[in-house]
C-alpha cells in the first residue's frame, strides 16, 4: 500500500515536471541516457536487471553466480544491480544469449521514458548530478590551482574576523584593556619615580642639616663670605652639588630657614647662598619658559636679596602671567629702598585690589616712600595704576603731592575722581573745594555721594547752596541723609533753617538722628 502511494506521488511529480521542466537533462536520445547511466555509480531508488528470454523449455540458466538468475516460464532474470558503471562489463558475457536490460524505479519496472522522467525529477531537486558536472569542478580546481599562486582563503574561516560587530566589540574591549594596562603601568612608573624623588629629598635633607647648622653657628659672616671653593667642597661634596635636585633642596632649605630666622643668621644664609653658587640656578629659573620656574626664581631673588638680578626681575613686571608680574613687582619693591614704582607706569594689565594691597604692604614695610616716584604713576595710561597712585598719596599721607593730584582733577575718570575726593578728604585739602563742588553736580550717583560727604569737611558757602539744591531735588534717602549730615557739619544755622523751612517728617527724623551722638554712625 505504502509502495503504491509512493509510486502515485512519483507519478504526479513526473507528470508535473514533464510539463514544467521538459528537456531539463541534456540527453538527445535514449542512447545518450544509457550512456549517462553507465557513468553513474549509484542513482537513488534506481536499479537494473538483465533479462534473457528462454529459447526452449530446456534452456538452462547461465552458470554465473554473479547474476543470481531467477527462472520464470519465459525467461531468466538476474538480481538487481545499482552500479551503472558495471553495465558494460556485466553485459559483455551475456551478448550471445540475446540479453536485454530492464530498468526499475522503486523496484517497479519502467521503460526508458519513465526512467528519463524520474531522472529529470531527481535532477531538478538536486538529488541527481550528471557525471559530467561531478567531474568538472575537480578539473576546474586543478586548473585554478595550477594557474594561480597559492593564497590562503581566510574569509569566513575565522568567525571573529568575519563578523564585523564582534570584531568591533573585541577591538573596543582590547583598547580598554590596553588603556587600563598602560595607565596602571604609567601610574606605577610615576609613583616609583615620585617615591624615589621623595626618598632622595629626605636623604639630601639629612645631608644638608648637619653642615648647614655647623656653618651657621661655627662661622661668622665674614668667614662665610671668604670661604674658598675647597672649604665649600669639604662641607658639601662636589658629587652632590652636581645633582640639580640636591641644589633645589638646598635652596628650599636655605629660603625656608631664612623666613624663620632673624638677626645675623639671615645675613649668613644670604651670603652662603651666593658663596654656594646657587645664584646660577636662580638665573636659570628666571630664563625658563615655565611660569612656575620663573616664580620660583623671583621668590629666590626676593628672599635672598639678589640685587644683581634686578634687571631680569624688571623684565617680568609686565608679564602676561598675573602671578609672575605680581611677584616681580613685589620683588622689585622689596629688593631695594631706592627702587621706585616707575615700573608700574607702562604696565598694560590692570592692577587688582590684591596687587595694590600687596604693594602697599611692602612699601609700608620698607618704609621709604620718598623714593617711590608716585607722580610718574599719575601720568600712566593705565587707569588702575593712576588710581593706585592716588590711593598711595592718601595711605602714605603725602600732603606734598596734592598739587600733583590737582593737575589731573579735570582729566580724570569718575572712578579716579572718587579716589581723588577720598584723598582730599583724608588729607584735609580745603583748596580743592571747587573740584568737590563740581563733583556734587555730577550725574554719577556714586561720585555725587562721595563729593557730598567730603563737602561736609571741605565745603564752603557755595557747597551749602548745592547741598540744599540736591535736598530739594532728590528723593534718594541715603543721598538726602548725606546732604543733611554735610550741611549740619558745614553750617548748623543753615541746617536748622533748612529743616524748619522744609517740615517733612523724613527731614525731622534725619535731623534727630544726625544730632543724636549715639545714632551718628548708624
Amino acid at each position, binding site marked *: 500500500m505504502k509502495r503504491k502511494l509512493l509510486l502515485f506521488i512519483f507519478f504526479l511529480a513526473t507528470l508535473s515536471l514533464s510539463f514544467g521542466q521538459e528537456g531539463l537533462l541534456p540527453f538527445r536520445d535514449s542512447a545518450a541516457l544509457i550512456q549517462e547511466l553507465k557513468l553513474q555509480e549509484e542513482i537513488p531508488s534506481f536499479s537494473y536487471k538483465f533479462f534473457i528470454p528462454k529459447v526452449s523449455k530446456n534452456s538452462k540458466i547461465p552458470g554465473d553466480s554473479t547474476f543470481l538468475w531467477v527462472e520464470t516460464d519465459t525467461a531468466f532474470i538476474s538480481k538487481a544491480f545499482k552500479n551503472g558503471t558495471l553495465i558494460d562489463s556485466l553485459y559483455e558475457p551475456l551478448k550471445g544469449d540475446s540479453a536485454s536490460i530492464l530498468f526499475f524505479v522503486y523496484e517497479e519496472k519502467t521503460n526508458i521514458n519513465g526512467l528519463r522522467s524520474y531522472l529529470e525529477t531527481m535532477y531538478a531537486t538536486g538529488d541527481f548530478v550528471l557525471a559530467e558536472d561531478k567531474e568538472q569542478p575537480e578539473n576546474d580546481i586543478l586548473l585554478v590551482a595550477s594557474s594561480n599562486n597559492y593564497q590562503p582563503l581566510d574569509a569566513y574561516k575565522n568567525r571573529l574576523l568575519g563578523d564585523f560587530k564582534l570584531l568591533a566589540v573585541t577591538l573596543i574591549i582590547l583598547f580598554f584593556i590596553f588603556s587600563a594596562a598602560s595607565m596602571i603601568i604609567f601610574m606605577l612608573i610615576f609613583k616609583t619615580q615620585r617615591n624615589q624623588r621623595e626618598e632622595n629629598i629626605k636623604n639630601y635633607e639629612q645631608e644638608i642639616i648637619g653642615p648647614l647648622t655647623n656653618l651657621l*653657628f661655627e662661622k661668622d659672616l665674614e668667614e662665610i663670605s671668604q670661604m674658598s671653593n675647597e672649604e665649600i667642597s669639604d662641607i658639601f661634596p662636589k658629587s652632590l652639588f652636581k645633582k640639580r635636585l640636591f641644589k633645589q633642596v638646598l635652596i628650599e632649605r636655605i629660603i625656608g630657614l631664612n623666613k624663620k630666622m632673624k*638677626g645675623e643668621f639671615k645675613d649668613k644664609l644670604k651670603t652662603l647662598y651666593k658663596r654656594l653658587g646657587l645664584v646660577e640656578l636662580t638665573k636659570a629659573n628666571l630664563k625658563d619658559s615655565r611660569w612656575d620656574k620663573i616664580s620660583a626664581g623671583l621668590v629666590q631673588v626676593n628672599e635672598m636679596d639678589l640685587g644683581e638680578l634686578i634687571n631680569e626681575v624688571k623684565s617680568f613686571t609686565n608679564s602676561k602671567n598675573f602671578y609672575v608680574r605680581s611677584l616681580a613687582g613685589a620683588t622689585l619693591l622689596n629688593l631695594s629702598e631706592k627702587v621706585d614704582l616707575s615700573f608700574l607706569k607702562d604696565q598694560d594689565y590692570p592692577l587688582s585690589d590684591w596687587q595694590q594691597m600687596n604693594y602697599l604692604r611692602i612699601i609700608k614695610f620698607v618704609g621709604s616712600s620718598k623714593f617711590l616716584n608716585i607722580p610718574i604713576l599719575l601720568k600712566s595710561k593705565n587707569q588702575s595704576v593712576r588710581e593706585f597712585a592716588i590711593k598711595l598719596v592718601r595711605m602714605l599721607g603725602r600732603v606734598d603731592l596734592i598739587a600733583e593730584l590737582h593737575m589731573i582733577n579735570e582729566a580724570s575718570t569718575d572712578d579716579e575722581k572718587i579716589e581723588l575726593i577720598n584723598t582730599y578728604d583724608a588729607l584735609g585739602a580745603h583748596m580743592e573745594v571747587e573740584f568737590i563742588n563740581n563733583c556734587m553736580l555730577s550725574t554719577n550717583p556714586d561720585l555725587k555721594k562721595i563729593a557730598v560727604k567730603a563737602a561736609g569737611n571741605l565745603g564752603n558757602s557755595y557747597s551749602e547752596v548745592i547741598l540744599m539744591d540736591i535736598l530739594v531735588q532728590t528723593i534718594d534717602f541715603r543721598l538726602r541723609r548725606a546732604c543733611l549730615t554735610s550741611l549740619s557739619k558745614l553750617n548748623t544755622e543753615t541746617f536748622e533753617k533748612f529743616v524748619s523751612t522744609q517740615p517733612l517728617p523724613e527731614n525731622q527724623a534725619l535731623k534727630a538722628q544726625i544730632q543724636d551722638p549715639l545714632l551718628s554712625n548708624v
Partner: protein
Amino acid sequence: MKKILIIEDDLLISSLVQFRLKKDGYETILVKDGNEGIHAIDTIDPDLIITDVMMPFRSGIEIIHHAKKTKPEIPIIVLSSLGEEEEVVLEAFNLGVADFIPKPFNPNELAIRVRRVLT
C-alpha cells in the same frame, strides 16, 4: 644635665635649636609631631619643653594642655610663627607657658630665654 624636649615638625629648625642648646650644655630630645610629643612627655621627664603650635596630629596648644595636666611643674616655651595672632599667644599664656617666641627668631635669643626659664 638639664633635659629639654623639643617638639618641632621642621627638621632644620629643630636641629638648629638642638645644636644651639647642646652648645650650652643641655641634653635635648627631638620629636617631630604632636603625638610623639605627648608620648615623650609621658615617658621621659624633661626639665623644659619647647614646642611649635602648628604640627601634624596634635597642635602645640593640645600639648600644652596635656603637659599642664600631667606634669604642671615642667616649664614650656612656645616657638611659633603664629606670634602675630593675638588669640594664640593669649591662649598659650593663659595655659601657663613660661615664654612665647615668635618666628622668625634668633637661636641665640632663644638660648638666653631658655637659660632664664631654667634658673
